[in-house]
């Protein structure tokens, strides 16, 4: 709070303070022409100021919105600061948005200005201009390909800054006066969230939201001004805005912009960040890349790596479960550190990481344990746009597999009677732009309805079970969270997809899709012959394999007070893969429950009946559009109520 009281109550004011206090410290780097080009805080402030004045020369007034579209580029971060300095509101958009989405947001946000990276974005905006009558100017950074454009609404960033310089001469006090007029409770940014239903909503966050919440997290996590982060996630995502802009401006640490989307992994290695965030998908990719290279290595090396990874993971698992790792493993760890973990960390570009986060969705325990066992401090973070990205983080030294940590300083968490997580914090947004109805539904007396079902465990850790609207109850009244169970099942390499059922039923059942590659490989190693996916899926050995996985999930539920009543009682393995072409899952691989309940009604009835097999005939759509029929006898396995 001290900064706000000291008059440093907006981000551009903090940028100016950085330019005064640490003028020569590197604020931001960008890899351009093969070289990391660095800009100091003084340059950061200068450029933001020139851009601000240029926008002022074009007529940007207090409260005007400026769309920001492009890859992570220093110029675009400067444009954010420049817009804020005039009291304008930056609206970052996803650079890969299609025209329809872009048109909706640019129009809804009433953007008068757009600052974009290159020709690609200019083309999209020019196409949708008819639908966005308020859009007056498009400022572009990269001049490549722009030579032939003559539209008067276009202006290059260089020209814009020149105009700014002229304004600085004619009205020397203008910028400082505008900067001084800004206050903590001005809207600093509008982040549009896609949401799974309806039109995107523009979440308004103030300077105060992000200064207080950003600082609380900085203090709890011990972040310093010598951190290095890689800004590679979309600028439109609130996380990037907090980690690569707000926290950087607050502490003065350095942000690094990769050369292109295709070079991120390489740039990661070159920079060696100390503070890093990635969704589970990216952690997964990193792990796969490592394992592929390990499998390609010569046999003795491979054996060495597997042995030491095993040691480290056993230690980490013990720690995560609060047990003491065995003595001989602890003795071996330093050797593994020298031979395997250190070099591997270095190769991943993670040697210097002090704090890393995974957020967005549940991460597979194997992946989480893998990175932690290498000595990389990966932690789970829980937050959303409405909370300035920050609600809860696992504290250093108190990391668990299945929680998202304890609330950050200033955050209060409450569980509603329906089991929904509610929170209140200094970071809570002020409302959705031009959508009072949605604001009323989400924000009640300062509490935000997260839409997630969860609870606080005995140790004070927040545990997220599922989306609140997916949570239901069994016929006996026990709480049942299908996605929670499905995720646990899918953490098994053998399970590709799973659908759990149980609402208003006596017990929980599951439809399982095996992973053809993993199970096929497993079968080959055991000499189990099979002809097709359908054949493989119905092998008794495969049922035994999957039963082990189901029992594992059931056993892990026992640790859970709230959910232990909803164990899986019966399951079957589907004779075909769930496929977006058959409309069973969406293109982004989300299960379409309603459709499946209808299509597989016979199977589901059988799961709740007495038989142990059920004949099926299924329509499949081939890639060329033809349809065919699969006939099979699907077995049903009752795992009983006992656990392993």
């Amino acid at each position, binding site marked *: 709070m001290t900064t706000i009281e000291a008059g440093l109550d907006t981000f551009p004011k903090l940028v100016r303070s950085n330019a005064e206090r640490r003028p020569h410290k590197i604020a931001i780097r960008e890899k351009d*022409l*093969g*070289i990391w080009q660095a800009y100091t805080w003084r340059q950061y402030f200068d450029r933001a100021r020139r851009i601000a004045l240029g926008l002022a020369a074009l007529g940007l007034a207090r409260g005007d919105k400026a769309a920001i579209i492009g890859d992570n580029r220093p110029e675009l971060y400067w444009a954010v600061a420049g817009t804020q300095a005039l009291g304008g509101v930056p609206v970052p958009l996803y650079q890969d948005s299609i025209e329809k989405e872009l048109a909706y947001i640019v129009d809804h946000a009433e953007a008068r200005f757009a600052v974009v990276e290159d020709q690609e974005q200019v083309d999209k905006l020019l196409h949708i201009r008819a639908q966005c009558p308020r859009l007056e100017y498009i400022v572009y950074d990269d001049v*490549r*390909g722009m*030579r032939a454009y003559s539209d008067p609404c276009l202006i290059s960033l260089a020209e814009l800054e020149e105009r700014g310089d002229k304004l600085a001469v004619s009205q020397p006090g203008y910028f400082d006066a505008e900067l001084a007029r800004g206050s903590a409770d001005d809207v600093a940014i509008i982040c549009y969230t896609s949401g799974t239903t309806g039109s995107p909503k523009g979440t308004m966050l103030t300077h105060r939201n992000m200064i207080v919440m950003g600082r609380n997290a900085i203090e709890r996590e011990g972040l310093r001004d010598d951190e290095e982060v890689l800004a590679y996630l979309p600028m439109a995502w609130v996380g990037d805005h907090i980690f690569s802009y707000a926290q950087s401006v607050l502490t003065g640490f350095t942000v690094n912009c990769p050369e*292109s989307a*295709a*070079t991120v992994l*390489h740039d990661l290695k070159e920079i060696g960040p100390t503070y890093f965030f990635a969704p589970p998908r990216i952690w997964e990719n990193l792990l796969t890349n490592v394992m592929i290279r390990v499998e390609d290595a010569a046999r003795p090396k491979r054996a060495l790596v597997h042995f030491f990874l095993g040691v480290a993971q056993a230690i980490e698992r013990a720690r995560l479960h609060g047990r003491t790792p065995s003595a001989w493993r602890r003795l071996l760890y330093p050797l593994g550190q020298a031979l395997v973990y250190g070099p591997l960390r270095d190769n991943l570009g993670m040697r210097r990481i002090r704090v890393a986060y995974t957020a967005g969705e549940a991460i597979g325990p194997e992946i989480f344990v893998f990175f932690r066992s290498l000595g990389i401090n990966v932690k789970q973070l829980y937050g959303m746009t409405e909370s300035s990205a920050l609600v809860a983080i696992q504290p250093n030294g108190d990391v668990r597999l299945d929680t998202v940590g304890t609330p950050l300083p200033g955050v209060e968490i409450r569980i509603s009677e329906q089991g929904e997580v509610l929170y209140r914090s200094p970071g809570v947004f002020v409302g959705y732009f031009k959508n009072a109805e949605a604001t009323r539904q989400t924000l009640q007396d300062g509490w935000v309805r997260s839409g997630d079902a969860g609870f606080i465990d005995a140790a004070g850790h927040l545990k997220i079970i599922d989306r609140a609207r997916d949570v239901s109850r069994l016929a006996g009244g026990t709480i049942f969270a299908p996605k929670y169970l499905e995720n646990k099942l899918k953490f098994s390499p053998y399970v590709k997809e799973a659908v759990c059922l149980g609402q208003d039923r006596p017990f929980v059942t599951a439809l399982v899709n095996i992973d053809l590659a993993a199970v096929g490989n497993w079968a080959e190693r055991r000499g189990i012959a099979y002809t097709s996916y359908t054949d493989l899926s119905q092998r008794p050995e495969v049922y035994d394999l999957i039963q082990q996985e189901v029992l594992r999930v059931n056993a892990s539920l026992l640790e859970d007070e709230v959910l232990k009543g909803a164990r899986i009682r019966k399951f079957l393995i589907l004779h075909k893969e769930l496929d977006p072409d058959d409309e069973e899952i969406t293109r982004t691989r989300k299960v379409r429950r309603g459709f499946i309940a209808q299509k597989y009604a016979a199977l589901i009835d059988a799961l709740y009946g007495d038989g142990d097999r059920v004949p099926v005939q299924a329509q499949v759509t081939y890639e060329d559009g033809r349809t065919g029929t699969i006939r099979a006898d699907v077995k049903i396995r009752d795992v009983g109520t006992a656990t392993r």
Partner: protein
Amino acid sequence: MSGPATPGPLLEVERISVRFGALMALHQVSLRIERGEILAIIGPNGAGKTTLLNVISGFYHPWEGRIRFAGRDRTRLKPPDVAELGIARTFQNVALFKGMSVLDNIMTGRLLKMRGNVVLDALWWGPAQRQELAHRAAVERIIDFLEIQAIRKTPAGKLPYGLQKRVELARALAAEPLLLLLDEPMAGMNVEEKEDMCRFILDVNGEFGTTIALIEHDMGVVMDISDRVVVLDYGRKIADGTPDQVRKDQAVLDAYLGVAHD
């Protein structure tokens, strides 16, 4: 346009003929390449397109006829001299140094612009260092332009075919040519790779003002990107005009679709 101020066409080919033994590969072919244009040379297999490109780039010497480049006669120059004049080319079959990185491959495109000194180069000192940095910067601009940053350090031989073609274009561009000759730049590419390559060709032409002559079989591509089309058949030029004119030309239709011989 970046060409010298001399007026007139960039390249004039006057009545050249090339023969391999008894085979007349080119017969009295004349054509002009104007400054700043994209010219497509098309024709059925064996029409003499690559031969024509080879004559222009000095690999073959015409049996008769003259070639003028930027107003000066240069009928009998050798390939290095042609390169020095400002003509660069790519090959029908990719001709990269497979074991060398993409970056080094493109650097070779600047060899003619380097002034070597064995001692200074070995010590990497003074002018040698400055020179290499300047060349590297020029190469990096091309890497950025063609969006191949991610493969900068990859050995060229490991790349998929479409990217190898792009690297070859990069190497040709590194010579900062006035005239760029592309021999089937899109052969063997899928639709997406072709679209990318079209965009790069148009961008090179638009941004650097480089004059481009290309051989291409994909008529869609030819009609979309070229300002002018020259059609060869059995070593003779049978048409020369805008894509629209050529499309309607009876001689061209006959050459491509065949005529009934009664």
